[in-house]
């Protein structure tokens, strides 16, 4: 169902299995409560999750524990429905947005009394804001089909009713009002003609909603557009007649997490907590494909192709956000010069370098880069949103920099833009000329910034990835993919030697060749084949003819694990030395120091930059790696040396 994105808060990661225990621990061990509560809240919580977290928060508050650094906020609620239903969800969702929310409820269906009596609980409670949660059942909306004059009076009356509430609250408390628009009931009287005829429910609700929006404009009071929220997820799903009749619940409980998140976004925006900067990954986020491997002609962007249009929509969305004051930046694992090519030369690109405040394309981990971007822009990490298609990068940034918002993304890039916007990171309560110019102010032609020290402990994250590496010699099944990688990989490719499938088959059957196809699976799924190696025997040496790897798994010690495997296999086959070569191309600068980093010794360097390296098998050190290794298909070297049956 497409409204799952909304009802399940699909931009947030799934809640951990031990969520209930973690909530209980929160109350039992009141250390760094606020931070821990916020981390728990930053999952896609359902109604029962929210209930548990709210219970733990209330318990901690009752015990007098501090919820710092969460910002305290007192929210009054007056409603014609059961406000008890929404309060726990609000308290828990507020933690997600950095707010320690305390709710003060008026008695059920005592809207006017709560607003107008100076000594009402709401007016006495020194609320920061009051949520006026009134729907069509709480407004005087008598239908008068065909009677335009009566309809006008009805609309006027409903708006006057709301004004009276606002005026009462303003007179008797310092709270601002959060008014709600009214979701349209689904039941029609005349059919489509409801929209034409004055005095129908459809006509009245439309007019009242317009009136509410107009009345809020230019005042301190705020609007919560529940009508739009309900329309977004579908009115037939939103309105639940059984729940209304049974318990006076204002809408289907499936949307409680969504509704609460929207209320809390607004509250957070009132406290200046909306985010200010969008950091974009490039490959498979801003365009389809990998610029370093696929080249300018190979990446997919632009009209006429479904994937190209999906990524164009990401760019369009980024530009729309920029126009309203959101600063844009780039963090990409790429060579700087190559990553800038599409911005300079691709005719279909909407984003240009001068739209970007900072352009970080390098091979460092993204957490370190995002930290550098934040420091360069003098914005807090809690102002940052990071959009990346790669779940491992998302996981790393979330773990190292929990203040940065990192939306989960679905597999289909067509939904990237929608998911980013559904998360509501940039919730606004005003829009000024200053906002319009902010992006310009931060402009400095996509500057690059120098990196600070590494943002944190990457190794611990790598362990949590539960990486499983499978090593096999070349075989018939893998051949097509092996040949594809050999002919496509440009960046992490030491020699860039291209071979046909027939040549790959020849290597498979060559008793003097040792071949490896490497697959990697992790906690996020199976990455498939990610590395290919061919060694050719020269007496007691292995000459590493080909060593390539997908950049998607860069920075995860895969190449170190592959070397360990080469050494292990070399030992069983009586090989005493590995010889590696780096042949420079325009695209493989990334691996210039590959062999040096792995502990090889330089043999020779040519004027064109090519270099050769050696490593003695016996003296090579072994390292403890966060990767489990599985082997299959290797012949015992004693019986059939270096041949590779399937």
């Amino acid at each position, binding site marked *: 169902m497409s409204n799952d994105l909304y009802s399940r808060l699909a931009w947030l990661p799934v809640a951990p299995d031990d969520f209930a225990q973690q909530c209980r621990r929160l109350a039992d061990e009141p250390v760094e409560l606020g931070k821990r509560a916020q981390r728990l809240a930053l999952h896609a919580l359902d109604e029962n999750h929210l209930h*548990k977290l709210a219970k733990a928060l209330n318990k901690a508050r009752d015990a007098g524990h501090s919820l710092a650094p969460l910002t305290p906020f007192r929210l009054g609620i007056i409603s014609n429905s059961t406000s008890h239903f929404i309060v726990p969800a609000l308290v828990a969702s507020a933690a997600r947005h950095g707010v320690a929310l305390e709710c003060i409820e008026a008695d059920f269906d005592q809207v006017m009394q709560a607003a107008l009596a100076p000594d009402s609980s709401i007016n006495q409670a020194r609320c920061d804001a009051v949520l006026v949660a009134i729907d069509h059942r709480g407004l005087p909306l008598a239908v008068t089909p065909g009677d335009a004059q009566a309809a006008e009076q009805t609309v006027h009356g409903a708006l006057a009713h709301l004004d009276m509430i606002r005026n009462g609250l303003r007179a008797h408390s310092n709270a601002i009002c959060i008014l709600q628009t009214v979701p349209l009931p689904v039941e029609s009287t005349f059919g489509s003609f409801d929209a034409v005829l004055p005095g129908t429910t459809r006509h009245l609700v439309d007019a009242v909603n317009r009136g509410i929006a107009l009345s809020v404009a230019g005042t301190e009071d705020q609007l919560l557009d529940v009508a739009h929220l309900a329309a977004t997820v579908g009115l037939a799903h939103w309105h639940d007649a*059984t729940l209304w009749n049974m*318990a006076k619940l204002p809408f289907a409980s499936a949307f409680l997490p969504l509704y609460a998140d929207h209320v809390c976004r607004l509250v957070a925006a009132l406290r200046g907590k909306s985010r200010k900067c969008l950091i974009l990954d490039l490959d498979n986020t801003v365009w389809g494909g990998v610029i370093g491997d696929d080249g300018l002609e190979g990446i997919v962007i632009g009209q006429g192709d479904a994937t190209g249009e999906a990524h164009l929509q990401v760019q369009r969305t980024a530009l729309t956000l920029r126009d309203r004051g959101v600063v844009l930046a780039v963090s990409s694992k790429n060579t700087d010069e190559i990553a800038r090519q599409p911005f300079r030369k691709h005719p279909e690109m909407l984003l240009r370098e001068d739209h970007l405040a900072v352009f970080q394309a390098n091979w460092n981990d993204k957490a370190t880069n995002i930290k550098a971007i934040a420091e360069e822009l003098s914005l807090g990490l809690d102002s940052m949103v990071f959009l990346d298609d790669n779940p491992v990068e998302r996981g790393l940034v979330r773990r190292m920099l929990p203040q940065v918002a990192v939306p989960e993304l679905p597999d289909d890039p067509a939904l990237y833009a929608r998911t980013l916007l559904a998360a509501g990171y940039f919730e606004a309560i005003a829009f000024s000329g200053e906002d319009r110019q902010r992006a310009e102010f931060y402009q400095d032609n996509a500057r690059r910034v120098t990196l600070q020290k590494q943002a944190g402990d990457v190794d611990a994250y790598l362990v949590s990835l539960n990486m499983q590496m499978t090593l096999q010699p070349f075989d018939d099944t893998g051949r097509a993919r092996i040949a594809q990688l050999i002919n496509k990989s440009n960046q992490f490719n030491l020699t860039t030697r291209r071979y046909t499938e027939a040549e790959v088959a020849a290597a498979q059957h060559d008793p003097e060749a040792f071949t490896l196809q490497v697959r990697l699976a992790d906690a996020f799924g199976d990455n498939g084949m990610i590395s290919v190696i061919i060694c050719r025997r020269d007496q007691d040496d292995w000459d590493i003819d080909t060593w390539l790897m997908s950049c998607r798994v860069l920075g995860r010690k895969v190449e170190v694990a592959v070397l360990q495997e080469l050494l292990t296999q070399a030992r069983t086959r009586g090989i005493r030395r590995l010889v590696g070569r780096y042949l420079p191309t325009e695209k493989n600068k990334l691996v210039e120091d590959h062999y040096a980093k792995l502990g090889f010794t330089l043999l020779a360097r040519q004027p064109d930059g090519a270099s050769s390296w050696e490593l003695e098998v016996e003296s090579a050190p072994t390292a403890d790696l966060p990767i489990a290794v599985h082997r299959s298909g290797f012949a015992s070297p004693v019986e059939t040396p270096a041949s590779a049956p399937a």
Partner: protein
Amino acid sequence: MTTDIIYAKLTDIFHDVFDDDSIVVTPQLTADDVDEWDSLAHVRLVLAVEKKFSLKFSAAEVGRLKNVGEFASLIQAKAP
């Protein structure tokens, strides 16, 4: 669906909704026996049961229930 399966699932639901793993779900159990079982918790309970068993109840069906035993019978009668 067997009674055992229904009670096993109900036990999970009760523990989740009331956030209390010590609740023992028996046919005789009523709202008076569980601290947090107020009218709103009752609605959450019914919604959780609907979700877990892929069922829908009317307000009248839910209103008639006297104890967990009757709830289990209702589930059994409506389960596909």
